């Protein structure tokens, strides 16, 4: 069984390190990007199985990454991980195509569980030939 591939787009070095170590420990193959430009390029070049996405990123923000990925018909599950807790931010993120929205500080067990659930859902949908989400 091949390892699930996760791309973590986060500009805070400490969070990036902690997330990377935890996802690796949970059997994921991890790629990282510390700004929005690199993150979007990584998603488009080699779509991962899951994206963990911060919103306030240098160069290109997380909303734009979500919008750009969905505009190119990429159906990779995206979990937004952010300190922005306002309802309008959550609504905007989900409307732009994110599958889940988790606010910082978070429980790492919760993040990994949700990531596993989304990957499983995506895999199950692919097996029966159904898309887990619609084009935006």
């Amino acid at each position: 069984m091949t390892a699930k591939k996760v791309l973590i787009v986060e500009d805070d070095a400490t969070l990036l390190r902690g997330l990377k170590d935890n996802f690796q420990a949970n059997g994921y193959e991890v790629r990282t990007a510390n700004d929005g430009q690199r993150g979007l390029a990584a998603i488009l070049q080699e779509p991962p199985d899951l994206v963990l996405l911060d919103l306030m990123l240098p160069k290109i923000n997380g909303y734009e990454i979500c919008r750009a990925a969905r505009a190119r018909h990429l159906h990779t599950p995206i979990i937004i991980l952010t300190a922005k807790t306002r309802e309008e931010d959550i609504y905007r993120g989900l409307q732009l195509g994110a599958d889940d929205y988790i606010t910082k500080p978070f429980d790492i067990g919760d993040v990994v569980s949700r990531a596993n659930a989304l990957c499983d859902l995506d895999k199950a949908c692919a097996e029966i030939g159904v898309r887990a989400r619609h084009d935006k």
Partner: protein
Amino acid sequence: LQNGAEGVVVSLLPPGRDAEGAFVSLPAGASLPDWKLALSLKDQKLFDAATDQRIASYVWIGVLVVLAVIVLALLILRVIRRQMALTRLRNDLVANVTHELKTPLSGMRLLVDTLLNSEKLHEPTVREYLSLIAKENLRLSRLIDNFLAFSRMERNKYALDFHTVPAQAIVDGAAAAVQERFNASGCHFEVKSATNLPLVTADADAMVTAVVNLLDNAWKYSGEDKQITLRAASENGSVTFAVQDNGIGLSARDTKRVFKRFYQVDQSLSRSAGGCGLGLSIVKFIVMAHGGAVRVESEPGRGSRFSLVLPAKAAAKSGGREANKEGEVL
């Protein structure tokens, strides 16, 4: 029958005669039926002039009232707009503060949880995590210090404790505060201070905060290959502390606004190192409270030089330092 006084003519008119030019005509009473009493002016122009004057005064009053209403409306509009801008700034500040506090807190929680939950972590990884937690802790402390300083500033409660201190002590304090972070790879940090820097009358802690804020800013807005220099020199009875970087620089417009509260040149860039646009406004407040001045010279894409100028204490010299660590004497 006519009787004239004060330019007014009172006429008693027999029946059948009309009073020409009378402005009032009344029946004369029961004893003189059909007779009329009429009031007219000797000179009609006087009446016209008085009327014109009255009309002019009404017109002026009307114009003034309209102007006053317009001015009042503009003032109210300005107050409302200022209030709205203030509310927006306050909301943004709350959102920014929340965001900036949560980021280091999230990092610390994630690493602590990982340390607690992982049964077999290698010793170097544990030490690395602890060092990252310490770094985030320091970052959180600096943020809180800046928020508190800003809050005290806003309430005019920022009390400075002035003493006679060597200017060199301020340079040393600021350099020591950032030394560990600035010694990281990708950052070339130099301290160049002149020999015989004079004494200054200052709150040393506050001045160190001001210089550290400039250094933090230089760090924040410089790219991956950071060249940051802290200089101190004495000239014409004053001491200049200057921080130079090779960062993104400022446009002429940004240069004018950079010391304003909440102002950030590049939100996305500043985000990567934290901050709410308060650092430079705190620097300006502290330096102005010392009777000093702040200056900024910058060129977009080439970097910035922020200078703080403090008056030196007259006729007194501190020991200073022989030369900087690079051997340069300014």
